[in-house]
């Protein structure tokens, strides 16, 4: 049995409002790899949000640190209805071309534990009219095992060409 197994790959051939993974049982940890972009035009970056088990309550919190042009920032958020996973550029907003997609990596550790809240580590990078790199880690205030993961942009849809793979990591 593989230690790291690709559970599912989604390669969007058309714009999609969200991507949900629900067949994720049988592993110790989960990892998400995303090469993505939003189909929304206009200025500003487009963020990627995450919800677990369909929970839309204010049970998500995270801290992040950001490099933004030549400045840095550190922030904390609590009581949100989603996790903030990273940044992707909106269509038409790239300062060079629409071929620019954002890149995100995320790990959800011990996602089946019912004794502690699951905690992800994530970091992302994107380049658009506003260069930005961000690292964040969050907590889901729920003791349930994670059975589904929904990814969706803060505005609009994922653009066709977005590629997302979820990996399962086995333990000994």
């Amino acid at each position: 049995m593989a230690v790291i197994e690709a559970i599912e790959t989604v390669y969007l051939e058309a714009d999609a409002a969200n991507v949900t993974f629900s067949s994720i049982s049988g592993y110790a940890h989960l990892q998400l790899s995303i090469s993505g972009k939003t189909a929304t035009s206009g200025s500003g970056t487009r963020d990627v949000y995450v919800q677990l088990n369909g929970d839309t309550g204010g049970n998500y919190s995270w801290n992040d640190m950001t490099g933004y042009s030549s400045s840095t920032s550190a922030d904390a958020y609590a009581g949100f209805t989603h996790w903030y996973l990273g940044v992707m550029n909106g269509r038409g907003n790239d300062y060079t071309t629409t071929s620019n997609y954002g890149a995100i990596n995320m790990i959800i550790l011990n996602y089946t534990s019912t004794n502690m809240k699951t905690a992800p580590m994530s970091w992302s990078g994107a380049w658009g009219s506003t260069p930005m790199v961000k690292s964040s880690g969050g907590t889901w205030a729920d003791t349930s095992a994670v059975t589904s993961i929904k990814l969706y942009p803060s505005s609009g849809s994922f653009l066709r060409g977005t590629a997302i793979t979820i990996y399962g990591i086995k333990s000994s």
Partner: protein
Amino acid sequence: MTTQTINTAAPAYLDQTTNVLTDVEAWVALQTVVVSGSSTSTITLQSSTGANDWSQYQDLVLLSAARGDTSSSADPTKLNLNNDTGGNYTYMFVYSNGTTAAASSSATANYWWSDDATGATAPTGLFGSGILQMFDINSGKYKQATCQTDRAGSQTTMYSFTWENKAAITEIDLTNGGNFVADSRFDLFGVLPRMVS
């Protein structure tokens, strides 16, 4: 002088007898380079055959642990793709050295970095390191990468990279300000997507 091992075995996800696809280990060790002398100025990793045919992977991951012989405390490893040395690389980074956090960016760089290798004036035995992930390497997109580096405990940096080229990645060249010293090591992995629906 280097020792370079390349995995050209048949891909494990394809049964060589029945040609049936199966899902196996998602991370595949492709190449390892270990420097055994101090005269190595360029390390080249190329796609070839079998498991080392990069066209079958979604992502590539490069692990670097390196030190250079430039007379400096740092001698980070520069990375070029497909022999492109033009100003087609962009970066955005934020770093901390324990007392200061700062950020910087460029849209016309000539390379990425794969680590924050130490240089000749760093304490003996200290090497810098890096974890670089290149995303969707065979797509028609500009190529994106993220990288986290450490300079032997004195500085850590997080990068976002873009290579403004839509070509599939088939070659990686690694250089520094001079030469890589002995025990510098680079491991390249291919990351497979889900092979079976």
